[in-house]
């Protein structure tokens, strides 16, 4: 089996090498830019952790060790949560419903080897939380406590085991999900997805950031500290990352348990062997069931099922049928929905995390509070940009080989742009306005400021969609149908740069508004006017440029 896994990996390595050699300078620049962005984010997280640990980890008495323990446990649990969500979101198209798997399954490849190949691929795509949160956290702790060299080797092993824990948990959950997907009707599954998503977020946040978190650290005396430590163990004890955090703490606190690392490694090895055996027995059967869901001859109408009502059902105004077509394309695509759900999960997670950090830092002071509100807005703006890049940017290009339908029709192209714009604004507004409302609730923002905050969020949706959709229309690519590849093009990078610039400007306005209200109790109308002017300017400019470009664009070039 191992030989086959290596052979399959080698084929991918050769393909990647060829792609790298054939890549033009623009693609290489884009790849380099995204790597730089990733490194900058990780470096920022490292600096944040280091500043925190330097302040807190020096103290050996009082609640300081408890706070270090909490931060480490919470960081590991966060990595697990984000990694598993990422694994599950990408695993169905990667492991079960994939063209390459279809081809490989027809070849004499061991099922367990095929599964392991796809599993490792999905695992490599979900390792990013380890790199962005796990590595900076442990490196910062080491630097803050002047840890000896063996600490870093120990931490590297812990992070490797953490990555494997994430992948194994994700693999197990995705198996259950695929099994349910093969059994349940689609509508039930979508409902279950939604419920699971909300429940997971709620339970996770309640567990990691419990009510009255500060009480755990508001302790004096050895007995109280021990009680709080046990409470932390009770909170994080059921996470598979708990032994890893306990083991890592051994270098900074006497309560650490270095032997836990060995036990964890043993448990992971056993789980890997069991999963391989399990995959050898069930993977092919499950994949086949998945394939049969969309069997070519399985027409909905053939078994006498009721005919769908005439199209368009809801959006009859003007060219509303474009809106409805986009709506059906989006809501009937599980992959798109999974990606959207995953991004929403990250957004809400980010907001709760910011709230927790702000709570630890103290929210009474207006400057601190305005910074926290502005940081939350920046997160909302960033996710509006991310959603725009993932969905609105490729919206025109993804019409791809279907572009002939509209291009050869009497419809004006600027109308196509307008209706696609309305649609993506409506879709992206739901999580973004929702996130803005959650932020208002979390920070207890007073209502005059809340109106300004909501206006800024609505403006951000309008601007991010026009920038991303506009860039996608200025540089359409009808050949490349993978939305991830489409949005990591030079045009996507330009949209990212413009979007980040806009979010930065609007975040400053939000901070000005918040500070003015908290300091003087006045509403800063100038800041609100500023953000409206910037938004109207960017929307008008892109609308005109992109609509004109579309009128002269050519579709369907192969």
């Amino acid at each position, binding site marked *: 089996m191992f030989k086959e896994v290596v052979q399959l990996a080698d084929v991918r390595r050769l393909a990647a090498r060829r792609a790298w050699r054939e890549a033009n300078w623009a693609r290489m620049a884009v790849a380099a830019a995204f790597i730089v962005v990733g490194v900058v984010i990780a470096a920022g997280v490292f600096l944040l952790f280091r500043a925190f640990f330097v302040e807190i980890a020096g103290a050996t008495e009082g609640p300081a060790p408890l706070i270090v323990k909490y931060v480490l446990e919470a960081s590991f649990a966060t990595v697990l949560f984000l990694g598993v969500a990422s694994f599950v979101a990408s695993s169905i198209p990667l492991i079960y419903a994939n063209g390459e798997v279809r081809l490989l399954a027809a070849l004499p490849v061991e099922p367990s080897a095929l599964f392991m190949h796809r599993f490792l691929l999905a695992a490599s795509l979900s390792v990013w939380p380890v790199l962005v949160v796990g590595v900076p956290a442990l490196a910062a702790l080491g630097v803050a406590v002047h840890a000896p060299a063996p600490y870093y080797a120990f931490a590297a092993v812990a992070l490797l085991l953490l990555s494997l824990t994430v992948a194994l948990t994700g693999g197990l959950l995705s198996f259950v999900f695929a099994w349910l997907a093969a059994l349940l009707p689609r509508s039930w599954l979508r409902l279950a997805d939604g419920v699971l998503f909300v429940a997971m977020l709620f339970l996770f946040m309640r567990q990691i950031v419990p009510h009255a978190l500060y009480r755990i650290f508001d302790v004096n005396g050895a007995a109280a500290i021990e009680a709080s430590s046990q409470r932390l163990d009770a909170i994080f004890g059921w996470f598979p990352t708990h032994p890893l955090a306990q083991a890592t703490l051994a270098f900074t606190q006497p309560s650490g348990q270095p032997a836990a690392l060995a036990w964890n490694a043993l448990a992971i090895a056993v789980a890997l062997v069991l999963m391989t055996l399990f995959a050898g027995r069930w993977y092919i059967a499950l994949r086949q069931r998945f394939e049969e869901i*969309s069997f070519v001859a399985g027409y909905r109408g*053939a078994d006498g099922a009721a005919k*769908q009502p005439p199209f*368009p059902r809801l959006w009859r105004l003007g060219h509303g*049928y474009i809106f409805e*077509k986009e709506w059906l394309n989006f809501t009937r695509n599980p992959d798109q929905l999974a990606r959207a759900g995953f991004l929403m999960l990250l957004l809400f997670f980010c907001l709760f995390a910011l709230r927790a950090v702000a709570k630890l830092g103290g929210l009474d002071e207006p400057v601190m509070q305005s910074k926290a509100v502005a940081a939350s807005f920046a997160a909302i703006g960033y996710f509006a940009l991310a959603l725009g890049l993932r969905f609105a940017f490729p919206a025109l290009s993804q019409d791809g080989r279907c572009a002939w*339908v509209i291009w*050869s029709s*009497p419809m004006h192209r600027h109308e196509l742009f307008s209706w696609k714009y309305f649609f993506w604004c409506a879709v992206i507004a739901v999580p973004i306005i929702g996130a803005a409302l959650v932020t208002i609730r979390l920070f207890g923002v007073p209502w005059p400021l809340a109106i300004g905050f909501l206006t800024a969020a609505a403006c951000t949706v309008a601007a991010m969609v026009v920038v991303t959709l506009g860039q996608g229309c200025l540089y359409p690519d009808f050949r490349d149908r993978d939305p991830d590849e489409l949005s990591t093009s030079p045009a996507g990078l330009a949209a990212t740069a413009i979007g980040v610039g806009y979010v930065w400007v609007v975040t400053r306005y939000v901070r000005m508004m918040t500070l003015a209200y908290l300091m003087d109790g006045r509403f800063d109308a100038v800041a609100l006017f500023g953000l409206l002017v910037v938004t109207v300017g960017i929307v008008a400019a892109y609308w005109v440029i992109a609509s004109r470009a579309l009128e002269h664009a050519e579709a369907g070039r192969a």
Partner: protein
Amino acid sequence: MSEPALLLKKVTKKFRTVTAVRDLSLEIMPGEIYGLIGPNGSGKTTTIKTIAGLYRQTKGTIEVNGLDVIRHPTRSKRGLGYIPDDPQAYDRLSGREFLEFVGQIFGMERGRRDERVAMLLDRYGLKDVAEGAFGQYSRGNRQKISILAALLHEPKLLLIDEPMIGLDPQSARITKEMLREFASAGGAILLSTHTLAVAEELCGRLGILKEGQLIEEGTVAELGRRANVGHGSLEDYYLALTA
């Protein structure tokens, strides 16, 4: 005399350094089926896509039912139906939803649209199939739905790129019948194909494209005379003329 349904005057289409179509002139009258044949890469698909508005010509003029496609892009397209060589449509819509969508784009009145959709689906016996998602269709069923989409709004000119690929013999016969009915009702057809038997059976006139240029034009008999190969089939004439 009525005006041509399609008129191309010295049309050239360049893609950066490559000239796909060079100084092409064509005239197709209402009721006529005109076949465009030629080797791979000779510019047939590019010509059709340029007329359909997917590409913009580099030089020359194109008129559809008397309307210049550059000056009157939307009005000229109202009378045009296009069947692409690769019949892809929105995978997540059902075949019927797709046809209804096309009817909406062409501004059809709802009652008329639904009546036409039902009638056209009936021609191929696709009523049940049309309720399934387009992405699950076989190549042949995709082709049938795209043929019906082009006929739905009762255009005056049909542009067809490889009409018979993927069709079973029964469906191919139905398609040929529908195209003949369309032409006998006064519609004009520009048909590009590599299936010479289909071209010979359906087309009144044929044009042979080679390296973007129209090298011969005429009826099958006229092409035969110019090919000078004695008695033979269109295949013999074609091979002689493109050699």
